């Protein structure tokens, strides 16, 4: 899937752009390059609907002059001169930020678990076989169950970064993932559930994920009469909680937003902001982490940093430019990069974001069954619709769920057809809550990847049955 010399060729292209930068006597410059290859299969109506493959890539160029920066992206090195002129022209119209310079090389480090040779060697036939197995496994678990949508994919990519301050690095990463929407349509009653998984190495949890999808499509068939609007305990499964958490918490932890007053945790540095048994960590060097890398989006070495320690806000996420700008504008006395520069790809300059965000508790963690028992009466929510409508500025959210189970006397008694779920993420995390014992990784609506357990939120949420 990945040509043997992909990294070398990409580095060669980046160096060619760098050479043009040098020939234009730019003060400071940074070139990034990406090249991705992959195979994917679309699943639809219980069968494979399409098989695809291909590759894409390009280069990005950032120039800095007297604290001003400009950016341009290009398809290949032949566009370097035009990109340099575009970026330079923008830099000269940008405000100067005192002290803003591109990062300097501070050594090298390797993050493990980002490449699996088995993925690089996967052919389109291998992926097709995996798709066959997924389809047949679903039907084997429940003959009524059909994969109504989803897909499976495997990919490998090369990325490089070079800058005028001595950073020159590159690497290869792989990924393997799948997601399935499983539906059971019987007696004019359709229930469905989406489950997925992704990994830097060959997937090892396919069967478990399929079992979960079929389980949730099955268990939500037992619908019961809706209850009344109530403020009550809610057990959010990791899958249900991750979208809301990811929409709100990474944004609230950005240094620039805290400094600007745009975070509900602004002016709270050093204070208790969530329950004192909780800790939030951004671990960008997590072995095999979906958002792990040895360097951040501007070449700074990455690290594991504790953002909220035992409930207290201890630090925040910074990239080089944001840190310099907030200091220059007097919004903070001191700030420096935390290796948290993130890119949406070579098409955009680095912004700030988290890597692998973990929510942990110093208290004993619990199995899902014991959390249900502890809840005694309330609801379990496994997925929500409209998580992207949550308000990251305030932490408020009001979403809908069709995957909601009613619990009474510590037992699941049935499913609601639909319910509203509302509350405030910041306040819910500051209230009485317990964490589950299994961490699951999920993607994010803002930045990075979420590594969260089930969370029993005893206060602050409202269920509004349809």
């Amino acid at each position, binding site marked *: 899937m990945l040509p043997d010399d992909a990294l070398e060729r990409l580095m060669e292209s980046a160096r060619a752009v760098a050479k043009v930068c040098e020939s234009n006597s730019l003060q400071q410059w940074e070139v990034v390059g990406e090249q991705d290859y992959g195979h994917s299969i679309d699943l639809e109506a219980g069968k494979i609907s399409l098989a695809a493959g291909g590759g894409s890539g390009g280069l990005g160029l950032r120039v800095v002059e007297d604290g001003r920066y400009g*950016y341009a992206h290009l398809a290949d090195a032949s566009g370097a001169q035009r990109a340099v002129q575009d970026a330079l022209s923008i830099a000269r119209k940008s405000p100067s930020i005192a002290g803003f310079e591109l990062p300097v090389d501070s050594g090298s480090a390797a993050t493990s678990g980002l490449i699996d040779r088995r993925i690089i060697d996967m052919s389109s036939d291998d992926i097709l076989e995996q798709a066959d197995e997924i389809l047949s496994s679903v039907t084997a678990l429940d003959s009524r169950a059909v994969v109504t*949508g989803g897909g499976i994919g495997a990919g490998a990519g090369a990325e490089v970064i070079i800058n005028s301050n001595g950073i020159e690095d590159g690497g290869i990463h792989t990924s393997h993932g799948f997601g399935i929407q499983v539906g059971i349509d019987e007696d004019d009653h*359709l229930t469905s559930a989406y489950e997925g998984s992704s990994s830097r190495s060959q997937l090892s949890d396919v069967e478990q994920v399929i079992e979960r999808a079929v389980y949730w499509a099955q268990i939500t068939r037992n619908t019961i009469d809706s209850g009344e609007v109530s403020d009550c305990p809610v057990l959010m499964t990791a899958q249900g909680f991750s979208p809301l958490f990811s929409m709100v918490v990474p944004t609230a932890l950005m240094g620039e937003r805290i400094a600007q007053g745009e975070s509900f945790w602004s002016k709270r540095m050093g204070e208790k902001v969530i329950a004192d048994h909780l800790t939030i960590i951004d671990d960008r060097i997590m072995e095999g982490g979906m958002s792990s890398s040895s360097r951040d989006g501007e070449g700074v070495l990455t690290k594991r940093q504790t953002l909220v320690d035992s409930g207290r806000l201890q630090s925040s996420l910074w990239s080089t430019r944001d840190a310099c700008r907030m200091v220059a504008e007097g919004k903070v006395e001191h700030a420096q990069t935390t290796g948290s520069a993130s890119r949406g790809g070579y098409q955009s300059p680095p912004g700030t974001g988290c890597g692998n965000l973990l929510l942990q508790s110093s208290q004993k963690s619990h199995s899902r069954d014991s959390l249900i028992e502890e809840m005694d009466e309330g609801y379990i929510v496994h997925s929500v619709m409209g998580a992207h*409508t949550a308000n990251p500025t305030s932490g408020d959210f009001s979403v809908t769920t069709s995957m909601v189970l009613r619990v009474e006397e510590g037992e699941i008694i049935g499913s609601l057809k639909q319910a509203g779920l509302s509350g405030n993420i910041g306040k819910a995390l500051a209230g009485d809550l317990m964490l589950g014992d299994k961490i699951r990784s999920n993607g994010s609506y803002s930045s990075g990847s979420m590594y969260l357990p089930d969370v029993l939120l005893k206060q602050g949420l409202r269920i509004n049955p349809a």
Partner: protein
Amino acid sequence: MVIATRAQEGPSQGRMHLLDRDKIQPALDLALAEGAQYAELRLVCETTNSASLRDGKLHSAIPGQEVGATLRILADGAWGVHSTTDIASIPSQIESTVRLAKAVALRRNRADVGVSLAEVPIIQDELHWNAPKDVREIDLETRLEMMGQVHAEADDDERIISVRCGWSDEHLHHELLTSEGMDRTWSFQRIMTNTMVTARDGDDVVSYRSRTGGEGGLELIEATDLGNMGRTCRESAIRLLSAERAPSGKMTLVADRDLTGVYIHEALGHPCEADLVAAGDSCLEGKLGEKIGSDIVTVIDDPMIRGGYGAYPIDDEGVDTRTKSLIENGVLTDYLNHRETAHKFDLIPNGAARAQDGLHHPLVRMSNTMIMGGNHRDLDELIEDIDHGVFACGSRGGQVDTGRGSFQFAAQEAWLIENGELTNPLKDVSVSGMTLQILKQVDGLTRDAALAAPGFCGKGQTVPVGDGGPLMRIKEALVG
């Protein structure tokens, strides 16, 4: 590959093609010789500019150009696809992509019917929707000046702690060559500016955002009262600081144009997408010709509404676009189709095939989706007989489960309606419901239907869309 980024020297002036016909046509012929039923190559060249202001200062400006192409081959009733930014490599991918399609076909059960495509006119032409003020001629100073107008009004209160303004414009050049002899080149452009205002009072922090733009050039932004856009955002953000949390439960809802648009996009538009119907993932399966809404509900999807953010002249299978009537007086009259689903449901392809860019294959998508106007004069007439309800405004987005037919959308701000009057401002209002129930609950529409703010729709791929309508009253909705 660098392609001209200025209008007078670029493609889409009737003088330049990016695909070399002499190489591509024989490659498509080779696909047929290898056993394919159909082969196409679609290229998209996007010339883009984005910019942003933070608190009145230039934060970023990014010029760029992306070229991508997707080879799509149908063999033995199954699809194989190859996408790449390396355009020159495409002829070498023909045989492997035919093999890929055949490998998919081999996995079909005997009972499964293979993919066939509805017939469409085979056209060779060029069509360019030029704009009076081409986006490729806009300089950075103009973008900054325009965003500066918004910022100046948005920032005019000490409780406003930040104003973020964004800008994006893009010129899209498409070429499509098929083994059937289709050879179409078309282009169009879009422009948009947006603002997010954050206000703080003690520990209360809120934000409000707005967008304007559409298909066309700078003239669309010049025609907008940008100062008013900034002022409206500021006033709404300040109002939200003292707004109460919305009541929960079933009540009468009145939606503004933005929310009416999101509602019809989520609740009806997605379930009308025939690829979802074919996949067994739509609550509208088998309901063509059935009454699914109240008599006053008529809905169209129309890529030909020039200026709408979801407008385009030709779809990504080379089919001419047209107005699609989805519901007429409450009766479901059509699905949105591409060639595959049109054949499956024995319908006429209606130009709804859209791909995110040159690197993605087309799916069935909406364009500009609108509920048409009704008989109510204005908001006052719509709310005069409501004892207890909510008037919700401005979209924060929405989502739908097309199979179950449940949907959700969220408002930026709202007011309580008490005894026919707007009273307290509310925040965090979301609305949810079931498509097949709530379309019958629409019992009031004002006369003045129009597209609302530009939007984006995600379905694995993201595409720009327009949606809108009049002010709409829903007799009973679940408000949270």
